[in-house]
């Protein structure tokens, strides 16, 4: 369970998130809101990339301020731009990055990579140069690079924004099948219809929180003017 | 200490250096001296990242050249480039980037185009030649003065680069400062 307790975040004296308190334990949580409403800041709080100025964030009982590494280990993060997440020249090498950081033995790493590549259907990309992949392939590689570390939660910050329709479907079909708990930020309201819960941020505050229909309606009424 | 961001900036600047290698060299016709963009990269690395990170990014770049990537202007690379007479200039790049960065850091709060240009000229031209020329002298057993005269042809191009680099350094400081003082 992820818990936020009266969290406040500001940049240069300007509040960006104000007094956010909530508990996340659903399988799939969507996050919506206008640009600049604080969604990414919220997402980054969840795995300790951003620490709260006031209040506290904890993941399965670990405080993000004190146990940053444990929190990061539990919460995987997929960013909007896959180009900035792929750090090695080939797909296979990139897969090994997170596993090396977790100090798995070499042989174990190789096995896990083979398993993950075939599980998510990207074996054919294994030895390709990452910069020659298409945008959709890159985002898949970025996602698998996180999944291979077996986090308990996966935060996705607008993962489909740069993808075309087909790649968007492909990515979502994988996300839908995942056993991990998902927290996904998106502007694609259609993608959220089967989510268990949706949060809507507006000007750094939690505007609405509940089932997709209710929250999306409130979002459209408040923000689409 | 080096944090993740520092490592990334160092790596990205090494990659930028490589990018500058693809900029075609302009050859000054009368003397046949090629003016390359990479010595500009040295000044930028120091002036934008500061002494330590700037110098390390050049080290990283040169290591990649040494292991066989053809990243120097004109597609040169490999260990061979260090054993030539100009090897001293390549190693001098490291010290030059450090020096430019060091001076820029010193003047950081009141950095302007003049002090930045001063840093680029002192570190990226004067110090660089102070290392490169004795190397040529020793490696090729040429008298110092001869080597010095031979290098003079590069000076005008280097001065232009220093002025350009300082304009970029000051502009980056205003838009995206990475040196904190």
């Amino acid at each position, binding site marked *: 369970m992820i818990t936020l307790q009266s969290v406040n975040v500001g940049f240069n004296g300007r509040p960006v998130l104000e007094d956010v308190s909530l508990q996340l334990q659903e399988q799939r949580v969507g996050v919506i809101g206008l640009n600049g409403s604080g969604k990414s800041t919220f997402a*980054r709080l969840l795995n300790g*990339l951003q620490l709260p100025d006031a209040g506290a964030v904890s993941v399965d009982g670990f405080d993000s301020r004190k146990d940053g*590494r444990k929190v990061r*280990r539990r919460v995987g*993060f997929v*960013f909007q*731009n896959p180009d*900035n997440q792929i*750090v*090695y*020249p080939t797909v296979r090498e990139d897969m090994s*990055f*997170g596993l*090396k*950081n*977790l*100090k798995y033995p070499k042989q174990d790493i190789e096995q896990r990579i083979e398993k993950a590549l075939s599980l998510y259907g990207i074996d054919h990309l294994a030895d390709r*140069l990452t*910069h020659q992949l298409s945008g959709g392939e890159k985002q898949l590689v970025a996602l698998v690079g*996180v999944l291979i570390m077996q986090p308990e939660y996966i935060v996705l910050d607008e993962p489909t924004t740069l993808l075309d329709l087909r790649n968007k479907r492909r990515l979502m079909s994988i996300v839908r099948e995942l056993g991990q708990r998902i927290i996904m930020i998106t502007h694609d309201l259609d993608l959220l219809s089967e989510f268990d819960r949706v949060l809507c941020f507006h000007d750094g505050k939690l505007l609405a929180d509940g089932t997709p229909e209710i929250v999306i309606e409130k979002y459209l009424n408040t923000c689409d003017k | *200490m080096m944090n*993740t961001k520092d*490592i*990334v*900036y*160092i*790596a*990205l600047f*090494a*990659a930028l250096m*490589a*990018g500058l290698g*693809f900029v075609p060299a302009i050859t000054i016709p009368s003397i*046949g001296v090629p003016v390359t963009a990479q010595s500009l990269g040295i000044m930028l690395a120091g002036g934008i990242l500061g002494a330590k990170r700037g110098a390390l990014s050049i080290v*990283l770049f040169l290591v*990649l050249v040494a*292991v*066989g*990537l*053809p990243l120097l202007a004109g597609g*040169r*690379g*490999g*260990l*061979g*480039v260090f*054993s*030539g*007479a*100009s090897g001293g200039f390549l190693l001098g790049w490291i010290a030059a980037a450090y020096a430019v960065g060091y001076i820029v850091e010193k003047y950081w709060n009141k950095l302007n185009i003049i002090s930045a240009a001063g840093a680029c000229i002192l570190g990226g031209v004067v110090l660089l030649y102070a290392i490169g020329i004795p190397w040529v002298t020793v490696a*090729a*057993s*040429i*008298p110092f003065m001869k080597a010095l005269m*031979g290098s003079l042809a590069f000076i005008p191009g280097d001065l232009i680069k220093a002025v*350009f680099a300082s304009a*970029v350094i000051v502009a*980056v400081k205003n*838009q*995206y400062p990475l040196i904190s003082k």
Partner: protein
Amino acid sequence: MISLYYPATSPVHKLAAGIKVLLLLILGTVLFQVEQIEILVGVAVLVVSLYGVAKIPFKLAFGQLRPALYLLAIVFIAQIFISDLETAIFVVLRFAILILAASLVTLTTMMSDMIAALEKGLSLFQRWIPVAKVSLALSLTIRFIPVIGVITQEVREAQRVRGMERNLFAIFMPTIIRTLKMGTEIAEALDARSFDAEDEISTGKSKK
């Protein structure tokens, strides 16, 4: 990423990268102690025949020297004036050998092997050099050279539309700023994948 590696099967190719570099360092040191030209000629013949053993075509071998020819010519002429023909030949020959020998190592060693050897060498100095960080930096650079190429291309196209493609400042600034912004995001992505877990384990205690 293109590299200078020339693929072939030969004893020279098979020799471990670390050994090759070590031999090269020794050669470089010894060569400057030699004073008889006969020895130098002998070494030159040896190095050239190693190119034969490594099955490297003559054109490619000569291509290694070409970028240095201009400088070697100057050195040669200068030496004739300063001392004599024999010294001129001696000095230029020494350079040619060093360049050829170094290029031979480069041509016969895959970049990944070279980097692996480098990391192995560095790990001897583990206490002073953060090997994992160095190795990450090497990979990042290779990974992002093409990305920066793409950024530069995009900036140039954007500036061409505004008629500024000849304005170097207008090309450099956006390219650098975009690269630095990208760097911030890359650093976050690295940390999100537990890169910072590194120092805790290797030093046995966490910082802060």
